[in-house]
């Protein structure tokens, strides 16, 4: 199931996501990125453990906090940075920005700036996969906040009655903006809501990439063989704020101790140690991976910085295809 080649790829991907977002944080603080940046630092195990189960033709939808999901599905950091900089060579020609990155050729059918809105869309993607007779599946990433949106309930019910090949992956990072999941959720585990829609629901340690991989693996198998949707909740934590720079607005809603406690559960060194103990990864490999990733990110930023800004009139292009 999990050979060392795949494990190494997963490790590299987690390191890549971490480096990408650390760089975004740095560039945002320097005022080099317009708009908002919602980072998922600390949550890397969820998208990586999930997407390691997917083929290129499988689809994902993502959220406003989607960099990790998108990179895990195979997006190129070069075009992501270009998009974050508002350049025409970005994934969305500078029209979408951080919250709306898509690459349909890689099955990334869109991050989404509206909480919960991607859930029905993912469900429809799975409807198309079923109706067209493919064996493909759709993974729908969403957060604990979205689990309280009506769109979640309507879409999961629909997928259940139609037995659609969709896997709902809840990245429960404990906070919807500043509101804790412990307050806003009527249940302890989002996964328990699966029973209301007659689909399997499971909660896993979202900082354990293998646990995520295994839970999603089972759900993907079910979806591919026509048994319908599943709900996988991954309990994790976002280290940074809802968006970069929120501290400047005086947004304080978590204790330092709480953040530090979760940082001790960092999914990357945990996986690293696991792989070292298994003899799959050496100290030299670790150094090399981090060095190569750093270079990749530097190159991507350079590409984005050097790319030309769009001609303003490009704003008028691309509304309709016909």
């Amino acid at each position: 199931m999990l050979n060392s080649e795949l494990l190494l790829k997963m490790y590299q991907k987690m390191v890549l996501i971490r480096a990408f977002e650390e760089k975004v944080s740095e560039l945002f603080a320097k005022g080099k990125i317009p708009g908002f940046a919602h980072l998922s630092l600390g949550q890397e195990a969820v998208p990586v453990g999930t997407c390691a189960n997917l083929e290129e033709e499988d689809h994902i939808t993502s959220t406003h906090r989607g960099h990790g999901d998108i990179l895990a599905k195979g997006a190129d950091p070069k075009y992501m940075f270009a998009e974050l900089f508002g350049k025409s060579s970005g994934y969305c020609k500078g029209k979408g920005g951080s919250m709306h990155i898509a690459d349909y050729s890689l099955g990334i059918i869109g991050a989404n700036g509206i909480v919960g809105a991607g859930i029905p869309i993912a469900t429809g993607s799975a409807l198309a996969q079923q109706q067209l007779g493919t064996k493909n599946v759709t993974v729908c990433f969403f957060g604990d906040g979205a689990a309280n949106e009506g769109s979640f309930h309507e879409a999961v019910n629909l997928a259940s009655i139609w037995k659609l090949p969709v896997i709902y992956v809840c990245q429960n990072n404990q906070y919807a903006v500043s509101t804790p999941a412990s307050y806003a959720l009527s249940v302890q585990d989002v996964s328990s809501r699966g029973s209301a829609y007659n689909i399997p629901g499971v909660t896993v340690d979202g900082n354990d990439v293998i646990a995520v991989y295994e839970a999603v693996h089972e759900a993907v198998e079910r979806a591919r063989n026509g048994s319908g949707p599943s709900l996988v909740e991954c309990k994790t934590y976002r280290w940074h704020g809802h968006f970069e720079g929120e501290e400047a607005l005086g947004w304080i809603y978590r204790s330092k101790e709480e953040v530090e406690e979760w940082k001790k559960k960092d999914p990357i060194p945990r996986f690293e140690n696991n792989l070292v103990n298994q003899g799959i990864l050496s100290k030299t490999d670790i150094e090399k991976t981090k060095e190569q990733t750093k270079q990749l990110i530097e190159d991507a930023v350079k590409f984005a910085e050097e790319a030309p800004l769009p001609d303003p009139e490009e704003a008028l292009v691309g509304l309709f295809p016909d």
Partner: protein
Amino acid sequence: MREVMFVQALGEAMAEEMERDPRVILMGEDVQLGAFGQTRGLVERFGPGRVRNTPLAEVGFTGAGIGAAASGLRPVVNIMMANFLYVTMDQIVNQLAKLRYMSGGQVDFPIVIWATTGAGGSAAAQHSDNPAAMFVNVPGLKIVKPGNPYDVKGLMKSSIRSNSPIIFFEETTLGMMKQPIPDEEYTVPIGKGEVKREGTDITVVAIGCMVSQALSAAEKLEKEGISVEVVDPRTLVPLDKDIILNSVAKTGKVVVCDDAPPLCSVASEISATINEEGFDFLKAPVARVTREHVPVPFSPPMEKFVLPNEEKIINKVKEVAKR
């Protein structure tokens, strides 16, 4: 040519397109039943995979239609009453209208959101709206609103074939209207209006259910010596400005009729367009015939009072023609 009813013409359009293209699916509340008769018989012909009854969950199934459109299907999503479109606003306005643009044109959304609209049967305010103008106000949607059986069939066929997102309004009050339509296949292009009646004194631009009322008003006005030209834009986005401006250039006077509230309406937009681009043709200010700006009331005399009708068109045309 055969005499065909409005609802029947709409059903024929869907059946023909489903026959032509296996990617076309129909989904919505009670589509297997065919609430107003439009889709009756389609599930027997195409099966429950392609004619899908949905739960009463407008956000869920509209969003699913959007996701399906992005992933290879060509869905027709039925919203039984246009008022229920409000429930789906995020999916239509934030998602459907924007996703192509925001992705830099990576993907098309070949979807038709089809809703019935109109008032006149004491359905009261939550079942009588005509919200077309709200959607006209959203960049990224094409809006179609046909006024007779020939157009409804031809425009539905074009809408299903279009790769753009379409909001297709079906006028309930026209359901039983009959008209001869060709036996052979035809389509009506999106974005092209039609002069429904030639005239020389005044132009009436009429939308949807107002077209037949404007034509009937024109017959009566002819007898009183006023020659009315009736123009039906048929598509509200994109709007066929040329056909309207050409007619105004000929007549110099214009009344715009739309069965919708007047503030920021399609009638306002057409009026503004004429003022901006056809001012030199005008011999009188552009006038409008619309609903009163209140929710549609239940009681028949009040309902009749707030809705536009043939008599109101006649009065407004006479008023403008005199100037």
